[in-house]
């Protein structure tokens, strides 16, 4: 069969469909926003564009979690921390762009520092007025934290539940730290009141469309990167670690190094997602570090299907669409019942998630070669 219709090795059919949808949205949504009149049934209002942009950053975040949970078996309960760090790096750049237009009109210090009676910029705020530096920090801040944390944890062979608990402790410690005013990150209120990004008004419709398109591109590139990683020899080792870590180690692989690379890449992807998220929602505050947020990411992945990449992105969009839909209006008090019920139902009745179940159904129908390029079935990581 493979001699007749060679499988596209990197992407597979569903991967191409996914990329087509994401990139199609990147073209179609701005087009519908600009080219249709506001009365038209096809018109996409700007606030919806921003909302969709937010979903796409969540999808990228879910993708980063799926890379380590679905393929390495690392259940991180602290991935929200990497997302928030990327967001804070971007937020600091945006704060510096406000310049003298703040409430207190200080040319250098952000409003909250003037309010705290600080006289000069803390050292770690220097450089954030330059976009390239901030962009670098979006990658480095989460990346270095993941490197240090992962280096300690994987070298000591902290696995499974223990790793999950300490990642949760990590994000909880950061939550407490960022709540402090003395940390110099705006305390409880976080960073907000942004004006410009790269000289463009952050509120302007055009800027929002561009941010949406960038989010879609980032998601598409992130997907291709993850897909490339998991399809490579490197990815095969990751999957082997997920299924039998000790055996991999006995075969002569340095499992901890493989895990560390995957963890750092995943943290950087989460950081990028956070950096794209902040200008679209206009605020970043310590709440993003809360352990509950990180657990919610896990649910997106579980709903969509862990170890499928596409499923993670799909789950993030679906759950967040449901959240937006149900938390406004009459059903608002029941949203938590639904979310909680969803957690339970997915783990009980849909352990492979939506996409995983779909693959299973498709494979059973084909019942010949594994259609999607022969990835082993995801298995529990215990």
């Amino acid at each position, binding site marked *: 069969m493979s001699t007749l219709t060679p499988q596209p090795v990197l992407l597979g059919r569903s991967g191409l469909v996914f990329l087509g949808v994401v990139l199609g949205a990147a073209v179609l949504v701005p087009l519908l926003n600009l080219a249709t009149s506001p009365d038209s049934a096809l018109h996409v209002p700007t606030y919806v564009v921003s909302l969709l942009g937010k979903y796409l950053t969540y999808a990228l975040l879910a993708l980063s979690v799926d890379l380590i949970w679905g393929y390495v078996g690392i259940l991180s309960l602290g991935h929200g921390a990497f997302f928030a760090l990327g967001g804070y790096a971007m937020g600091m750049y945006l704060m510096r762009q406000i310049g003298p237009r703040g409430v207190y009109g200080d040319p250098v210090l952000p409003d909250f520092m003037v309010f705290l009676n600080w006289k000069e910029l803390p050292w770690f705020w220097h450089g954030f007025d330059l976009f390239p530096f901030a962009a670098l920090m979006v990658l480095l801040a989460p990346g270095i934290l993941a490197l240090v944390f992962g280096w300690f944890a994987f070298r000591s062979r902290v696995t499974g539940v223990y790793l999950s608990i300490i990642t949760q402790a990590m994000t909880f410690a950061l939550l407490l730290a960022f709540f402090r005013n003395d940390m110099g990150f705006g305390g409880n209120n976080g960073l907000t009141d942004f004006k410009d990004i790269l000289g463009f008004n952050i509120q302007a419709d055009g800027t929002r469309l561009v941010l949406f398109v960038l989010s879609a591109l980032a998601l598409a590139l992130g997907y291709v990167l993850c897909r490339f990683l998991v399809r490579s020899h490197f990815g095969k080792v990751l999957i082997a670690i997920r299924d039998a870590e000790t055996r991999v180690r006995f075969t002569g692989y340095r499992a901890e190094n493989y895990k560390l690379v995957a963890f750092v890449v995943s943290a950087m992807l989460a950081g990028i997602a956070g950096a794209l998220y902040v200008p679209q929602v206009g605020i970043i505050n310590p709440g993003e570090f809360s352990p509950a947020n990180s657990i919610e990411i*896990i649910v997106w992945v579980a709903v969509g299907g862990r170890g499928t990449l596409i499923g993670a992105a799909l789950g993030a969009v679906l759950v967040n669409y449901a959240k937006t839909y149900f938390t406004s209006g009459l059903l608002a008090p029941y949203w938590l019942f639904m979310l*909680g019920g969803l957690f339970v139902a997915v783990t009980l009745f849909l352990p492979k998630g939506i996409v995983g179940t779909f693959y299973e159904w498709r494979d059973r129908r084909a019942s010949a070669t594994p259609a999607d390029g022969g990835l082993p079935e995801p298995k529990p990581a215990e």
Partner: protein
Amino acid sequence: MISRGLLRRLGGVLFLALGLLTAAATLPRPALAQGAAPDISAPLAQLATDKYDDTEAALGALSVSGSPAAAGIVAALADGRLMYSPATKQVLIKTPEGGLTDAATGQPVAEAPPGLKAVRVNNRIRRAIEAASGTLALVDADPAKRLAAASAVMRSRDEAALPALDAALAKESDARVKSALTLARASILIGKAGVPDAERIAAIATVGGEGNQDALAVLRSVPADASPAVKQAAQGAIAGIERSLAIWAVGQNVWYGVSLGSVLLLAAIGLAITFGVMGVINMAHGEMVMLGAYVTFVVQEAIRTYNPALFDASLLIAIPVAFLFTGLIGVVIERTVIRFLYGRALETLLATWGISLILQQAIRTMFGPTNREVGAPSWMSGAFELGQLSITYGRLWIIVFAMLVFVALLATLRLTRIGLEMRAVTQNRRMAASMGIRTNWVDAMTFGLGSGIAGIAGVALSQIDNVSPNLGQSYIIDSFLVVVFGGVGNLWGTLVGAMSLGIANKMLEPYAGAVLGKIALLVIVILFIQKRPRGLFALKGRAIEA
């Protein structure tokens, strides 16, 4: 209880006066006043002139007269119930009930003299009244009041009180009061001008032996013109006190640490069963604690409505109710959800997190999002002193309770049949099943036990935390850290883990502040897990993972 409430509401002097009055009216005369009653006719005559100068002088004379009637007279003056007749120069006290008694003898007066007027009081007289009642309290019949008066004098170091102190010292028989009086006298002597060096150094030694903050303040008040010998003695005494205070401060932190540790233990011990023994990452554990707290609230409401007399027993009633209720909820959760997920630990995390959201929202829907008031029974309020430590009964009971729960749980697992079956099933499920143990039933009971214990913890935590739907969330991370730190599957590990984290937290707090201390602790635990990935007391075995 009533007197404590009164004390808060009334000024100290007024209260003292009222107390003295009732005591004077109801009790036999105190030992102090035995023998011939001193003559107080001169001050009484001064009072009858109703001139401010005379009144002030009369107060001074009365306060050192030693007469049993003096306290009543001063109290009556403070309340504006001291009457005099300008015609007969008689001084009378109007009782709160409206009758009249003779100020000197305390005998009821049947017929009021004509033109009775109240002795006038201005601010100067009020200050004199305060001083006089303070002095009179030094010779009060109640030793507790004499003690309070002596320490008040020590804090004020009012030189004018010296004669009264001397008089009181001469009569005092109670050892504790006597040492307090000596201390007060020494405090005055240290700061008083013209005291010989030898006497002053003796006084410094007396005060230095006390070793609390008050003594430190007294010793720092040594006048600048005192001789070098006196100053040196004072310096030495101050250094000694500061050393002992530092030790007490450590003791205080340890005590707070043990108290926090027992709270952590209560919160974590149920999790040590569901997570530690069964391997379920039970994110709904915090909500079981929260349900226990709400059970306490409901029980208290029921008691308030139907039988307020039982209020002091409300917590004791709530304990079994909370255990049964949350235990039942736990069994239902185990039978409907958890049992399908054994062996998939990370997925139990998702499902139980979902359950926790549902439970929180259910409570929010039923009881509202705001805090609910859970009252403290009388035996849990108040405090006592232990050396320089102030120990509140609330903290003490929670520590005792945590230990009782721990011992009870340990005994259940070690000594009972169901405990044996629980351990058998968790160690080797198939073998246990082959021996005829109904493993399904044991699973349900184990999860129910862990949940029930969490509910009991909720009863205790309702006393120290806000009873709101979010109560559980604030404990869940700490609970997991305690169990993981102590070593999964080991109850003793949980005990040691809770106590070490509690004490470490309180020891860090003075140096780093509450938030930074907590952050430092989280980092320490994360690093510790690197060192010992299986916790403090890891179960030994030859199995390797995966």
